[in-house]
């Protein structure tokens, strides 16, 4: 069975919260005339690219539940969110898909038409290995591990556009940079934004910093460049992260993700030239005891949705200044295992949010869940993640040629963005 992927009625779901209606309108007009109370600067020439990488296999069928699929509950009799209307049931999105109740905060941007889910999507990696799948998705060379491409796709994006004048071009908000940003110019991992300054006693700070600078000047990458980029970026444009007050009463969760998104919002508003952010969101490898309704998965989905909602509210006046997307290297197996969890799978659900996104709908060329429809027992992939990212690059970031970013991939325009 094929599920029609367009939902012409999404406009009726707008304005679930009045504040959003107001701020979204403000954002829409900000391109032409900055509202007095909102953005104090003109919109960015290119929106900031913000990747939330859900690591270790996020189960897309628990987040966006295909409740109307005739075989879904046969495959997952005990570990699934019930259909809308049932106790603890999914929140209906379009008559076929429903949202996990713990992720209800996604409805805020969704109902405003700013958030789009793309289901049965992902990367065609056959191995079901996390590490292979990361490499294929982030390096985006389908011939891995024998391929010749070693840079990340975000690195190639940064190399393809005219750089801005910022001290930093990309930031990974975790201790390790993701493969997506391997080898990227002016790029640093910043796991803790609040103490990004030269340490040690003030009395000798300038002299010590000068000595350090001299020692790292002309030193080979990645160490030399990292040190000099760090020194150049000290202070992060003077943003006071502790004192930062999110707009529209947005409240970020106190989780790692919440703190990091809050800092990213502050940095985008400060306009210090950072073009790309990555945030790794860990913990989705739930082989056992997945807990879709009240356990670990539920907690993770709630944190994800509440963090994204807070960012959406906080950034309402800057809607056109970012494009946020969340993806994972693969989904999970369609059948439950005996450990009350799901093993590694294939297709999953990704999402994107920001200006230009044709949101408020779930897009899917739904492959179905009967035995013949599945890919080794997993949700098949009908939308290549590179089509989604490609559309962002073409329509929002001004790239005309995708070949250097996604080699060997024939791009199809699905109309995810306008």
């Amino acid at each position: 069975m094929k599920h029609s992927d367009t939902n012409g009625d999404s406009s009726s779901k707008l304005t679930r919260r009045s504040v959003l209606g107001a701020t979204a309108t403000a954002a829409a007009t900000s391109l032409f005339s900055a509202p007095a109370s909102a953005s104090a600067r003109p919109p960015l020439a290119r929106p900031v690219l913000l990747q939330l990488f859900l690591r270790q296999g996020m189960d897309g069928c628990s987040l966006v539940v295909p409740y109307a699929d005739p075989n879904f509950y046969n495959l997952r009799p005990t570990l699934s969110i019930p259909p809308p209307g049932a106790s603890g049931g999914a929140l209906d999105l379009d008559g076929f898909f429903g949202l996990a109740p713990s992720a209800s905060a996604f409805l805020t941007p969704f109902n405003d038409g700013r958030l789009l889910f793309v289901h049965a999507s992902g990367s065609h990696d056959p191995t079901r290995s996390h590490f292979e799948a990361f490499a294929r998705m982030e390096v985006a060379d389908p011939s891995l591990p024998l391929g010749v491409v070693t840079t990340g796709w975000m690195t190639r994006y940064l190399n393809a556009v005219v750089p801005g004048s910022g001290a930093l071009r990309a930031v990974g908000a975790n201790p390790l940079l993701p493969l997506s940003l391997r080898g990227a110019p002016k790029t640093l991992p910043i796991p803790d934004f609040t103490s990004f300054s030269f340490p040690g006693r003030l009395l000798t700070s300038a002299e010590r910093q000068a000595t350090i600078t001299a020692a790292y000047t002309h030193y080979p990458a990645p160490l030399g460049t990292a040190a000099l980029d760090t020194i150049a970026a000290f202070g992060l444009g003077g943003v006071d992260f502790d004192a930062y007050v999110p707009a529209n009463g947005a409240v970020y969760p106190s989780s790692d993700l919440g703190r990091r998104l809050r800092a990213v919002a502050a940095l985008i508003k400060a306009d210090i030239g950072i073009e790309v952010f990555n945030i790794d969101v860990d913990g989705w490898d739930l082989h056992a005891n997945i807990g879709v309704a009240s356990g670990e998965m539920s907690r993770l989905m709630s944190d994800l949705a509440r963090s994204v909602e807070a960012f959406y509210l906080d950034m309402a006046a800057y809607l056109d200044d970012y494009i946020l997307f969340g993806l994972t290297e693969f989904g999970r197996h369609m059948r439950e295992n005996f450990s009350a969890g799901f093993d590694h799978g294939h297709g999953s659900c990704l999402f994107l949010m920001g200006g230009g996104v044709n949101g408020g709908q779930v897009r899917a060329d739904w492959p179905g869940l009967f035995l013949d429809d599945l890919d080794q027992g997993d949700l098949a992939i009908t939308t290549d993640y590179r089509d989604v990212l490609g559309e962002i690059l073409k329509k929002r970031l001004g790239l005309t040629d995708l070949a250097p970013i996604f080699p060997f991939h024939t791009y199809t325009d699905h109309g995810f963005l306008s």
Partner: protein
Amino acid sequence: MALQSSIQDVHARLGLPPQSGRSFELPPPPRTSAQPSALDAARRAYRRHFLATLSGGAGAGAATPLPTPDRIRRDPVLALVHRITNGFNLAEYERARALGYEAYLEEQLAPESLDDSELEERLTRYAILGLSPKQAHQTFENDTLAAALQLKSMVLTRAVNSRRQLKERMAEFWRDHLNIDHAKGIEWALLPETELTVTQAHALGTFPGILSASAFSAGMQYYLDNWLNVRGAAQENYGRELLELHTLSITGGYYESDVKEVAKCFTGWTLNGRQSSPDWLRTTFDPSQHTPGPKFLLGQRVPEGKPHASATFLPGQGEAQAVLDLLAAHPSTALFLSRKLLKWFLTPTPPESLVQRVAETYQDTGGDLRAMLRVILARENLSFASPVYAPKFRRPYHFVTTLLRAFSGRIENGFETMSFLTGLGQVPLQCAPPTGYPDTVENWGPLILPRWSFSATLLQPLFGNYRGVRFPLMPELEELVGYDRGLGNRRGVAQRIGERAFGGTLAPREVELLQEYIDGYPGDFDTSALFDCLCLASSMPGFQWY
């Protein structure tokens, strides 16, 4: 069609309460206290002069060459000390030099010959030491944070203060290769025993030995979910990582079907769920949950095997061990492990000829790790002209242990150090993915600022406010770096810091820069100034390598 979502909680099967999320977040590292002090006129003038000098001079010369630890390359004993310890320490180096290269290596390859009673005595302060899973769970059920901190503190204490340094370097290697995250679920209660029976017992034993100990340890059974692997519904998490990460490697020549067959062979291995038993939460075999029938791995039938660690033979009980035997004997495993050990000790790019030689040793000796290490650490491999010896980038953990060892720190507890390791991204026993922490400059190089912050906090006068580590008194430190405050002689201080405190890791240009800083320092070259220099030296690029 069952629509009701009845959430099973598998922990009930172990007599445990439902799990709720990770609860092991440590507070962020303390901000470096940088008290604004009054700048006197002389110092302001000096600052201007100093900055002017540097901005004119820096970068004017040729590009700094890749790290060239000449001082180290000329001295194989020094190179060996750098590679097989958790950080250069002058006294350790002088002891090694007195013994000679081969004797020092043999001593370290025979850790049982080294009296480590002082360390063992100090480890007894940790109540969690030696506890069974049941005891650990009962003792720390309501204070898992304390359990986790004690576990990590023990790892740190051993790394910094054990005399059996090579063994501890290998223990670190195994903690990555056979990674277990203490905080995915109840691993914190299983690791006190698993650390002893796997890492400590087999660090320098044989690969088949540590592989088997790991497979049947409660920690691994839980972490990779094999305890839930049962007949009719195989749980393949462990089987997959066993093939991909522990033995053959992703290119080792196996198929998805092999993952599923391995998983079947391991069905029935689980954790004891009887709370009344002294073996509660220990590994056990339940024959009723073992998948019967023939199984095939890499194209051959898995033999029934012999029972593992059990006097009574239960049907199917030998299959898991038979799988481990097959995998351990496979050439792909020998190559994978040999290459990884060469990367760990010698060079990020080991030549295939040497990989082959180490792999042959593996095959000839049944995976004897000491025999492999004798090939890897042979004197010619660490000598001046060796083509297989290349600089290695310190991982954050090694950076921290090296600084603590350089100044002969004694670990009292790991609290503050763990806070810094959190910011540095490498807390022991806390790597979530089963790969363990990476070991390349590409991964760790970009995160430089937390290193500078750690140096600046640790290296304040008399080790300032750093908590949890006891350091020698000032005269010993002055003797270490050859600085005599009484005479006020600054000459050669940078050279001595580079050589005696940091084992020759600083490049000549870095020593020069440091000496310029010392020479230009206005007024007394006091304790604060000396510590500034130590902070600077350890923040230099050279010290990031070994």
